[in-house]
């Protein structure tokens, strides 16, 4: 592989996210944000991986990521998303959702907006101001959807002081993560192993669809949607199992892959290269799942989703819908056909890897051993 640089940063990292590049830009990303947890003072920080063109022969110092700026954050940073180029949304363990604004001219961060009681408990036994951690955020400019331990779903819009829509008691257990399917639809995962699809166009407080694993109700911790195929979703569970789902068909996953030995904290499809999937876990490992097939005409690694080629392997030759422009290699029902290559990316086993993010050729991850790992050559 590749050079992977580690740096110890004196705070346990709970989330790392690349700053998105402007659409149509050819540059690779250079900045990432991190959130810390379990400190008396937690911080949301912005880091830069330096000039891309300045790799000198020792390579050592150039790879190091440098802190640009940081800002105090109340409570653990439970989730972090870039809303746009300058704004970062952070979810807190105090139930508060904050939008930070980055000022590039003087390299500072400031609070742009805050919803303080986005998540709270309202039970008969809980005190009136009992806060609940907000566990997941997803952004799609201008909307922000948050979920929390109180089983509540909030829909915010930037610059609106109140929530546009709130679904109270959407779930009787904790909602761990949320993602957009299509813009008015979201998908949540909870701690009793269910995926629920919610449609904001409908008025009620009921999900439009529920999917779950048969067998043990293992809590699901993370979810990610395929970048080009909006019906393919991957989830990671408490037992380290990776599941791929097709939400149009049935209520059960398409494939279950035994992955890690402990909770899988994050799963990500590579945004421009969706045959590659990345997972990180409490067991201290980060895995790269490569499901790309050996098609002879495949010369470049970067293909767009709408291309008219089919990646076939023997097991799906009898699938009905061969008209589809692209059949995802993740929906192959027989993953044991040795087609998925799994590589572990971190050099030594460490404490839990809490978060990872991929964009272009760059990958960043953060661990409980207070280290951030960055690589800029994922596919070399």
């Amino acid at each position, binding site marked *: 592989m590749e050079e992977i640089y580690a740096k*110890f*940063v*004196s*705070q*346990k990292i709970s989330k790392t996210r690349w700053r998105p590049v402007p659409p149509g830009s050819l540059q690779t990303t250079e900045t990432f944000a991190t959130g810390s*947890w*379990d*400190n*008396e003072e937690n911080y949301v920080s912005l880091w830069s991986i330096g000039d891309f063109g300045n790799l000198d022969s020792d390579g050592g110092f150039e790879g190091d990521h440098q802190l640009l700026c940081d800002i105090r954050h109340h409570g*653990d940073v*439970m989730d972090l998303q870039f809303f746009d180029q300058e704004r970062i949304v952070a979810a807190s*363990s105090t139930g508060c959702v904050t939008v930070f604004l980055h000022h590039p001219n003087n390299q500072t961060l400031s609070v742009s907006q805050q919803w303080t009681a986005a998540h709270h*408990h*309202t*039970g*008969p*036994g*809980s005190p009136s101001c*009992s806060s*609940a*951690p907000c*566990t997941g955020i997803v952004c799609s400019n201008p909307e922000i959807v948050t979920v929390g*331990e*109180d*089983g509540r779903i909030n829909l915010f819009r930037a610059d609106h002081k109140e929530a546009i829509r709130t679904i109270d008691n959407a*779930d*009787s*257990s*904790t909602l761990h993560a949320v993602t957009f399917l299509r813009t008015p639809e979201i998908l949540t995962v*909870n*701690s*009793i192993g*269910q995926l*629920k699809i919610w449609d904001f166009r409908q008025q009620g407080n009921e*999900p439009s669809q*529920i999917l*779950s694993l*048969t*067998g*043990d*109700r293992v*809590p699901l911790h993370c979810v990610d949607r395929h970048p080009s195929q909006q019906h393919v979703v991957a989830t990671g569970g*408490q037992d380290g199992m990776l599941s791929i789902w097709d939400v149009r068909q049935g209520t059960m996953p398409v494939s279950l892959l035994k992955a890690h030995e*402990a*909770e899988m904290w994050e799963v990500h499809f590579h945004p421009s290269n969706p045959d590659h999937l990345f997972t990180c876990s*409490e067991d201290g490992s980060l895995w790269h799942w490569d499901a790309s097939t050996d098609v002879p005409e495949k010369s470049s690694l970067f293909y767009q989703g709408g291309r008219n080629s089919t990646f076939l392997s023997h097991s799906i030759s009898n699938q009905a819908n061969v008209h589809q422009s692209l059949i995802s290699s993740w929906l192959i029902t027989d993953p044991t056909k040795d087609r998925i290559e799994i590589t572990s990316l971190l050099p*030594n086993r*460490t*404490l*839990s890897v809490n978060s990872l993010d991929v964009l272009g050729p760059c990958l960043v991850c953060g661990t*409980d*051993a*207070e*280290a951030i790992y960055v690589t800029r050559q994922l596919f070399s």
Partner: protein
Amino acid sequence: MEELDSEPTVTLIPGVNSRKKQMCFDWGPGEMLVCETSFNKKEKSDMVPGCPFIHIIRKNEDVYSQILRKLFNESHGIFVGLQRIEEELTGKSRKTQLVRVSKNYRSVIRACLEEMHQLAIAGKDPAIGRQFSIQVSSLSAMELIWNLCEILFIEVAPAGPLLLHLLDWVQLHVCEVDSLSADVLGSENPSKHERFWNLVTVLVLQGRLDEARQMLSKEADSSPTSAGMCRILGDLMRTMPVLSPGNTQTLTELELKWQHWHEECERHLQDGTFASSPHLESLCKVMLGEEAALLEQKGLLSTWYHFLVTRLLYSHPTVKPTDLHFYAQSSLDLFLGGESSPEPLDNILMAAFEFDIHQVIKECSIALSNWWFVAHLTDLLDHCKLLQSHNLYFGSNMREFLLLEYASGLFAHHSLWQLGVDYFDYCPELGRVSLELHIERIPLSTEQKALKVLRVCEQRQMTEQVRSICKILAMKAVRNNRLGSALSWSIRAKDAAFATLVSDRFLRDYCERGCFSDLDLIDNLGPAMMLSDRLTFLGKYREFHRLYGEKRFVDAASLLLSLMTSQIAPRSFWMTLLTDALPLLEQKQVIFSAEQTYELMRCLEDLTSERPVRGEPDAQQLQALCF
């Protein structure tokens, strides 16, 4: 500890008037709680406004330092790596591996040292700058001691290479040479620089004779009168026999050659070759190892151990490790010259030269402010099998004691507890018990943190702790009306009793409201239903309602009946069940078979026979219907 090393320091608690009021205190794992009491020192009660706060006092400040955190984290990785490769360490490669581990530790210390040094000189606040400087000197002392221990105990260098290692050691820790060298060489006329001779002398003192020769050639170029003498001295420097690594000459050969060379230098001195240049003469005397000449250079030597190494280099280059302490003691005495007494660092180094490992560790424990250094060094030395014979009277050995102390200190920190877990793992006697006690006391503010703690417990089969943590979380969830979460926690802990509690709660809600809350949970219980009878009942009861809603009356009826006859329905609920049976009995078509009806009646009788006085109108209605 038998003796007090110094006066205890007094810490004033802000806000408490210690002259008028009394304080009470209590010890915690790493901290102390202090607060003011309402007792006054004087007899009559002065109505002095009291301090309403409880103060937490921490002794171990280092754990909270940002830079030292990097030290803790990186060294944790090295520590765990060392324990894991223990089984693979055999034979010849063992020593090399252990030396490599030791160098890793040292490089981590150096990295922290560098960073702290940068902060110390860059900071604007002088008080903080001073604090950093103190930490810097503490860290550099640690690295100095560790390096010496590596040479003497881990590398176990024999006579010959021993001196080379000691030379490296000194060169690494006396860094003014490089800046002086840059200074002098950077000037226009180096040999006329005021500190030129200082530089040459220091190079000779450090055994860097090639560089010293180069300096001498510059002097020879610029002042032709002394060119001849410089050349001779330069030759002497060039021909000094040294043991280079990989050299196959034996120690006796080296000694012989060295003896000849020494005599040649002596001869030059007697002949007065360098008489006209005092600088060159004193250099020659230094190279002969004359104590008086060396002591004249005290300023350049700056420490007694530098004096020791230089002295050994020029008088006993083939010194054996066992003889080191003689020279060390005399060097210390000569260098200090009775003017000052040895400092703690000096005592530690002396103990190392005497190969008294326990003394080294004991003195370090006293002198340093936290357990990091002694814990890791002792562990490494233990892997070198140097500490086997010494057991402390309270049962565990020294390595384990120090690791336990260090790990307990980590647990007192809000964030570094995760590191402490691994240290406890490698303490065979008391590690597990200590971990069990500590892990239950970690505050759990979010579910994610609880999950991490639970994972730690489950990986070590600490079922009691898993149960108690899950119970706490489940209780919290029930109070917050998160019944799904509560159920999820009881499933994780396999806690049937709690699952029963949650189910009762659901059933109670149903009785109060007439409908189920959280249908998404109850409808999808799956195999978790088997965890407790009550839970199974809940699931089945909900199924009954579903069947009824789908108008599958026959199935619903038999399900309802089986709920009662199989005894999984709680007695208190039977009335509700029988009431549910009413609409089925009232249906036009026959749903219950004759046998089923008899069963129903029997259940009703069982129920009513327990409560003979209260007449249930429903029961009568039911009886009427049956006939």
